């Protein structure tokens, strides 16, 4: 795998992360499903997952960049598994609505598992790490730059939505309204 192909695949990974963050926003804004604290923590891990691909696009692929994303994916999978286990008892309806039979935290676990496998597969290809001797080329084309700013924009939008949801106090365990907007009424 050449460096440029690896960078292109990393950009695709950024689009996948942006898709997950956008889908979470869609559930929140269109379906009115406010994320619980553990749900927010999983969303934060999805955003932080972008650190590896962004560094790979900017500085070229390095194992340490992939390792950073692997650590985040492992943490995210653990957080999602915790929420799955909280609702494992028979008869427990789970938190929020289900999508295709699975709750969002179960989908999040699948997402982090896919990220771990995809990152491990990328690490199999050594040629992407070979230095060609020259100065690092500007690998970030418009496709990759758009992906980076999309993820950064969606993460910044989450700062605002979480501030509206939680206000300036601790986030409620089972949020039903935007705390900051309640205070303004």
């Amino acid at each position, binding site marked *: 795998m050449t460096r440029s192909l690896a960078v292109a695949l990393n950009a695709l990974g950024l689009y996948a992360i942006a898709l997950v963050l956008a889908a979470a926003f869609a559930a929140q804004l269109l379906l009115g499903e406010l994320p619980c*604290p*553990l749900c*927010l*923590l999983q969303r*934060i*891990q999805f*955003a*932080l997952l*972008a*650190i590896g691909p*962004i*560094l790979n696009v*900017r*500085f070229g692929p390095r194992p*340490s960049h992939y390792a*950073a994303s692997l*650590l*985040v994916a492992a*943490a995210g999978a*653990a*957080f999602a598994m*915790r929420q799955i286990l*909280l609702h494992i*008892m028979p008869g427990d309806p789970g938190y929020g609505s289900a999508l295709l039979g699975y709750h969002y935290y179960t989908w999040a676990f699948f997402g982090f598992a896919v990220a771990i496998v995809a990152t491990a597969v990328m690490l199999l290809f050594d040629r992407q790490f070979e230095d060609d001797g020259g100065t690092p080329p500007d690998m970030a084309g418009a496709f990759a730059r758009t992906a*980076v700013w999309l*993820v*950064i924009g969606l*993460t*910044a939008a*989450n*700062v605002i939505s*979480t*501030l509206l949801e*939680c*206000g*300036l*106090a*601790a*986030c409620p365990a089972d949020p039903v309204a935007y705390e900051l907007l309640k205070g303004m009424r």
Partner: protein
Amino acid sequence: MEFTALFLAVTVVLLAAWLGARTLALALFAVTLVACVATYLHHASDVLKLSF
């Protein structure tokens, strides 16, 4: 409030990765990841209200 701060921290980390120095981005990333795990452990130690 802590989740707003974490999202803000992640935004700063991603901006540092894209616009700043690599070492700074990795250092900020490490701090943010530790903060995420600490937040998780703090909430995981809450008493669960089970109904069975």
